[in-house]
């Protein structure tokens, strides 16, 4: 059960769930590049946010995406809007003022654009994470030619993490029981850092050797291609679309970094 809680994956039968993970990943990249490189100010970000919300609705995870984005974007917005609204160095157009503190248009527009860009990227990242099982992602990366060692370090932390969190909690409880203060002066708290961290790290080190031996015994270093239980379906169309999206990314990126005056005319 613990494993299911660990990643954000939500089980489902929608069309987005069955899209190849690499296709989704390329679309995430495309969204990011478009939002930050495409011309037209906030317009591409707004359009993509709309499209991404539609995608979330189709795959039936709109509610989760909404809840999660809210939690991430609200604290950002709470800082972003006042700080830029009051203090952005480009501020000229005064909207309203109260006792000499003015709220300016430029800062608000700037904050709004940044938040919109972030919302578009966050939305599609969440859709990716919610509809892609980590194991499918790793399998598809291995099939695309990534080495087994990389697949291992991408996958094994997900399996190790619950055990390590459990151990961190045990250490915390044990040191508290022995009188480790989590309050008191700053010096005292700094001093309690070492007894909390070193057992966790030394304990983890003791395990590394065993794990390495266990892996080698199972043919970790073998050069032969490994077979996998999982099959991630892919299609020629998806492969073509992926290449097309990568091409668009490249073009947008070039458009962004090459100064116009040398290109036009």
């Amino acid at each position, binding site marked *: 059960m613990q494993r299911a809680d660990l*990643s*954000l994956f939500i089980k489902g039968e929608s069309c987005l769930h069955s899209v190849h993970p690499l296709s989704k990943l390329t679309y995430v990249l495309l969204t990011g590049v478009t939002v*930050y490189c495409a011309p037209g100010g906030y317009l591409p970000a707004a359009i993509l946010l709309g499209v991404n919300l539609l995608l979330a609705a189709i795959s039936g995870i709109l509610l989760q995406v909404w809840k999660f984005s809210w939690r*991430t974007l609200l*604290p*950002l917005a709470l*800082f*972003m809007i*006042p*700080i*830029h609204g*009051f*203090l*952005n*160095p480009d501020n000229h157009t005064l909207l309203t003022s109260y006792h000499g503190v003015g709220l300016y248009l430029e800062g608000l527009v700037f*904050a709004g654009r*940044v938040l919109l*860009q*972030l919302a578009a990227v*966050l939305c599609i*990242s*969440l859709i990716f*994470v919610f509809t892609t099982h*980590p194991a499918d*992602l790793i399998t598809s990366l291995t099939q695309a030619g990534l080495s087994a*060692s990389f697949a*291992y*370090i*991408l996958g*094994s*932390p*997900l399996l*190790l*993490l619950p055990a*390590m*969190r459990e*151990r*961190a909690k045990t250490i*915390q409880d044990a040191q508290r029981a022995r009188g480790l203060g*989590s309050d008191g002066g700053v010096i005292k*708290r700094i001093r*309690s*850092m*070492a007894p*909390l*961290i*070193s057992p*966790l*790290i*030394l304990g*983890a*080190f003791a*395990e*590394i*050797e065993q*794990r*390495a031996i266990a*892996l080698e015994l199972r043919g*970790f*270093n073998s050069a032969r291609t490994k077979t996998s239980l999982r099959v991630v379906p892919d299609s020629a169309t998806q492969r073509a679309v992926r290449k097309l999206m990568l091409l668009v990314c490249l073009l947008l990126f070039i458009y962004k970094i090459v100064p116009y005056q040398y290109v036009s005319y």
Partner: protein
Amino acid sequence: MGVTEKFKKDFNTFTWVLISVAIVLNIAVGQLVSLLKLPIFLDSIGTVLVGVLAGPWAGGIAGLLTNLIWGVISSPVAAAFAPVAMVIGIVAGLCAKFGMFKNWWTAILAGLIITVFNSVVAVPIRLYMFGGITGSGADFAMAYLLALGKDLFGSVVVTVFTANVIDKVATAVLVWAIIKGLPEKASARFPRLVRA
């Protein structure tokens, strides 16, 4: 020896397991330290440790993957800062190459160098992707600096540097203490430790 062969020699099974454990340590230590309510996260302690023990490339991979995996399991915002974590690992590895993790005071110096490179990569990401704001306590510093009349770039630079300097120095000193305290059996595994 070609680059690929050198890479293969550096990356034996032991190194891969070390990296995978370090990724988990990065995430787990953060949870432990939050108990102390100090203004530090120590969420790159595993990355720095790998950099010192197994070299800059291994450290870079550990940092990069920590943030990408973090992105998959809990916060997509962390993934945006993956290049920063990668640079921390690489710089820590290079510092160790020049023997900067031998004494506590050179470790402090290494922490400062890591902070500088960390800021160089973090500032553009923070500035262009987040408009300088990430929704943490450091934003108050940002607001204060802007109110003093500094420009956006300058404020972000100062904020990022000050928010990281204590954290990275503490990380470097702790890593120095940990490799001093490693049992012989474990430290014999890392030929780089003779130099570090």
